[in-house]
């Protein structure tokens, strides 16, 4: 409970109470608080600057000419703005093609994640079965296993199925539930009052109807969070495309960027233009939907308490 939410009269006196020996006078305490606050601002401004500068650097570098990119010492703001770096970089590679590939893979993956995580999450949250505890523990345990362990068997599986150099290995696993997102949705489902579900049951609603009519509408914020997190993850995924995609035509944006870097070694201006074009949509999505990201973090991250 924050002090300033109390009505005026009931607020405890911050001043030294007479019955307890105090080491500080109220004046000294206020001065310490002022110094602390000043120190906090100083650190916060410094850190925020450190966090935002790389992004500004990316922007200004993307506008530099080829000569000023390799200038020493470098300059933060170029004397000339080369806006044509953007179209130049974009057309230096079939980036439009890579973009469409990325959109296809990401859209299918996000769809698969949402569709396949809701039912298990509901089951883990609300349906009782003897094996539930064991299965839930097994699911949480898989989150601790590093991806490297499953790398080789998954590759063998997909090569046996003849799916190498196709999008199947990137998309298909998403249609069979992800432990993290099932856990996240389950956490949210458990916060929905039991009475709502029970009264629907009394009215004769089946589980699917309860899910569709009560749980899903009430959980839209959590579902949006899952969609966003899954979008960010699949949009940036580099390893799986690297392992499975062979034909350049099928490359997604991250692979295209790697290819681009190999062929334009010193052209940091063009590289930063590419980074800008790939990251700006994500920055925009983040700024528009920040609260959903925060919910995702607090739902999965606060579990320690």
């Amino acid at each position: 409970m924050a002090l300033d939410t109390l009505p005026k009269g009931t607020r405890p006196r911050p001043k030294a109470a007479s019955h307890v020996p105090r080491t500080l006078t109220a004046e000294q305490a206020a001065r310490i608080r002022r110094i602390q606050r000043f120190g906090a601002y100083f650190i916060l401004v410094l850190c925020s600057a450190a966090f935002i500068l790389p992004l500004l650097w990316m922007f200004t570098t993307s506008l530099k000419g080829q000569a000023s990119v390799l200038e020493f010492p470098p300059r933060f703001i170029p004397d000339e703005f080369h806006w044509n770096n953007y179209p130049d970089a974009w057309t230096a590679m079939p980036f439009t093609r890579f973009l469409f590939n990325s959109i296809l893979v990401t859209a299918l993956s996000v769809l698969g994640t949402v569709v396949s995580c809701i039912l298990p999450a509901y089951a883990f949250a609300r349906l009782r079965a003897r094996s539930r505890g064991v299965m839930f523990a097994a699911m949480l345990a898989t989150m601790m296993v590093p991806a490297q362990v499953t790398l080789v068997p998954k590759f063998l599986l997909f090569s046996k199925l003849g799916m190498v150099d196709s999008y199947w290995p990137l998309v298909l696993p998403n249609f069979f539930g992800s432990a993290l997102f099932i856990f996240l949705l389950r956490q949210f489902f458990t916060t929905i009052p039991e009475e709502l579900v029970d009264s629907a049951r009394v009215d004769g609603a089946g589980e699917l109807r309860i899910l569709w009519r009560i749980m899903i509408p009430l959980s839209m914020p959590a579902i949006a969070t899952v969609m966003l997190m899954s979008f960010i993850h699949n949009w940036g995924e580099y390893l799986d495309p690297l392992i499975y995609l062979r034909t350049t035509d099928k490359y997604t944006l991250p692979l295209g960027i790697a290819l681009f870097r190999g062929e334009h070694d010193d052209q940091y201006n063009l590289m930063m233009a590419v980074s800008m074009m790939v990251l700006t949509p994500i920055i925009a999505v983040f700024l528009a939907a920040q609260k959903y990201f925060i919910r995702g973090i607090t739902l999965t991250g606060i579990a320690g308490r």
Partner: protein
Amino acid sequence: MTAYTLRGRREARRFHLFTTPWMIGFVLFSGGPIVASLVISFTNWELLASPHWVGLQNYRQLWHDPDFWLAVKNTVYFGAGSALFGVAFNFVLALMLNLKVHGQAIFRTIIYLPSVLTGIATALLWINILHPDYGLINYVLGLVGIQGPGWLVDEHWAIPGLIIMSVWSAGNAVIIFLAGLQGVPQSLYEAAEIDGAGWWGRFRHVTVPMMSPIIFFNMIVGFIGSLQAFTLVLFMTDGGPNNATLVLGLYVYRYAFQYFELGYASTIAWALFSLIIAFTAAQFWLARRWVHYEFK
């Protein structure tokens, strides 16, 4: 009573029906492959040949493989560095934000933003930022008269460079810490103040114990994540210079997809998994000394 058990049985049937997608995924893409990987780690399997059982030979080879031990060292260096710095940094920032400063939301957004910018485009940005001559960091250091190091091209500075990038992209923990700090009951601070505790005493005896489960949780998650991180390393340095950034995850990738020795690759993967388990277990053991739980 029969009605109840009937309903119970129907509910259990629903449960199994609803969890089927995950069960299939578990068998095909997580649980199954985990078991398969363990089996493969006892075989000698070159991609195009057929596997044959070699018992513990891969594990013996691993024990005498100097590159493996180098990778363990690099993994622990990078993993511990980014997890500890990440947690400490985020915790301090959350403490500052919790002082009810003006513009809290703006600071929070700025610190949080980089953590959603994962992937290759960001790695590309950091290749530029860490460039010894044309990069942002050495430019800023130069402004205050410091000659910056060779970051990703110098053996001694490559991992510190990667740790800086990793801390930059881990600002999301600030949200968790801030939520935790706001959940510490104000009455505890008031009680401490009445007992004559100064700001340091309140921090030491109220904030730290109350926050310890959250710090602990973030340490666990941080270590698990950073010990296995390698895709950005693969892209940025490919283990170089001179294997200074060869981490275990990357070593697995090399054996699996460059040397095509699936058996040995799986052995390294299990060594990595064991390392993660060891670090997690050690932290749980240490937690008994410092983590405070409200309800035992």
